[in-house]
């Protein structure tokens, strides 16, 4: 296939994905914004004012990058897992499978569509955060890079979850039992300096900690971990998940008989 055809296929999938989540915006864009606004009000303003400083910043300033990242992670994941599984469930995925579109383009289209939702929600949450506190981004390039790569990583994870899923229950198990605990324990609400050495060590096994801290470093200039490791980790996971996703697609796992 020539590059024009490939680009057309990719942009068609991407456009359809964006059209899907914007068509159902009350389900996809509004709820995360409301949830995050409540976090800002409760943890940032009401409780945060009694907590005092964390990492040299007010609690509101500290928690905002974490909450933005949490919104990006959960929305990137949930968009693709829901969209691709629905396509499997309704069999509309066959529209793509019978077409000449290469597997990597199908995966890239779904993943980038999901990244788009994660970034849009992250952007809106950032705008809301600005009504609670002022944000001065310390390292703009690093901030944009880590948020984008994190969205890609969790979109890939959601895509693989959707491939394996056999029911709608299967697409909520990972977000409920894996993603949410890792996110809440991933330094969104606190610095791991507050933990005992044992739990600090355990926390460092949590990949989300690195992403949240790298983003916080980009915004505030402080981090619990070495930011380089965050980038290395994210890139390695992206490479692994991309390879796994393509392997599953090429073997038609739960897509072809």
């Amino acid at each position, binding site marked *: *296939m020539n590059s*024009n*055809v*490939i680009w*057309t*296929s990719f*942009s*068609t*999938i991407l*456009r*359809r994905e964006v*059209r899907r989540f914007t*068509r159902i915006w009350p389900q996809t864009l509004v709820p995360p914004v409301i949830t995050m606004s409540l976090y800002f009000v409760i943890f940032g303003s009401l409780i945060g004012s009694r907590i005092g400083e964390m990492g040299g910043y007010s609690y509101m300033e500290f928690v905002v990058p974490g909450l933005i990242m949490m919104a990006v992670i959960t929305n990137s994941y949930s968009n693709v897992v829901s969209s691709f599984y*629905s*396509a499997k469930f*309704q*069999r*509309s995925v*066959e*529209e*793509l*499978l*019978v*077409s*000449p*579109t*290469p597997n990597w383009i199908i995966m890239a289209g779904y993943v980038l569509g999901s990244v788009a939702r994660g970034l849009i929600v992250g952007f809106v949450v950032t705008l809301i955060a600005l009504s609670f506190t002022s944000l001065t981004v310390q390292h703009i390039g690093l901030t944009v890079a880590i948020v984008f790569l994190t969205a890609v990583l969790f979109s890939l994870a959601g895509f693989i979850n959707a491939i394996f899923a056999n029911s709608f229950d299967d697409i909520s198990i990972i977000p409920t039992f894996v993603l949410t605990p890792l996110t809440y324990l991933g330094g969104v609400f606190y610095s791991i300096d507050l933990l005992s050495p044992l739990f600090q060590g355990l926390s460092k096994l949590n990949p989300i900690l690195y992403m949240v801290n790298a983003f916080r470093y980009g915004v505030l200039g402080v981090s619990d971990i070495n930011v380089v490791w965050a980038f290395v980790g994210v890139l390695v996971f992206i490479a692994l998940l991309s390879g796994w996703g393509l392997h599953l697609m090429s073997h*038609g796992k739960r897509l*072809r*008989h």
Partner: protein
Amino acid sequence: MTAALSIQDLEKTYDNGFQALKGISFDVQPGDFFALLGPNGAGKSTTIGIICSLVRKSAGRVSIFGIDIDKNFPGAKQLLGVVPQEFNFSQFEKVYDIVCTQGGFYGMPRKLAEERTTKYLKQLGLWDKRNVQARMLSGGMKRRLMIARALIHEPQLLILDEPTAGVDIELRRSMWTFLEKINRQGTTIILTTHYLEEAESLCRNIAIIDKGDIVENTSIKSLLKTLSREVFILDTAETLETCPDLGDFQGRLLDEHSLEVTVEKGQSLTELFTGLGGQGITVTSMRNRANRLEELFVSLLADKSEAEEGEQ
């Protein structure tokens, strides 16, 4: 001439050990209107699934207009359009978007995809429904939507798996007219159907598949010539109390105005009418008791079952 579709020794065994295809072979020539018939579970949908990449073959070769799917599946897919048996589009998307988006999947520039979408939605009577979500369409409209979607890249080979299932007679006939038109324009069509009347009136060649084997592969004309007997129902003007003398023909009285007569190969209908006329009986109308292809279809499958029982 390169076959539009060539299938050689195609086998499929599913993970549970069920052998759906046992090495079938057949060719479909360019421009043909070809029927692939068989009872439920015979292997028709598996064959179509392999051709369009939704099912992985266990062995054998498939080529579309000379392009081997093992060597260049994307190239082969550009020439192929498939209308599946089950509805397989997003129920929440608009009709226009479903068709136009499919053009994008085939790498068509947006403008061309829009032009073709307009063309096929109009031809298939769906233009008024273009902004309606697919779930709001009737069953017949959904089938036509899938045909429009399959035609968006104007494939040279179109495969329709039970396209008229559950469609009312009027709509079925309008779909036949449409399919005949695109066949005349050069599109090779392969049709699976349970309506044997449909296959008889539309298709020129036929393959009958049963339990993963090809039972018959010939032209419909040749197949119908093998019919050794036909059973007719004759309606009479006169009231009959007993079955009249039918000479060499076998028959019986169905009711006081109709006779069932079996005509063996070589017997003449003129002889039958002359005999009846001689007894003062006027035949006002006649019809086959069952579709001729249906009779052959049933007898071929019965022959196969008997042969298998004999082997056991």
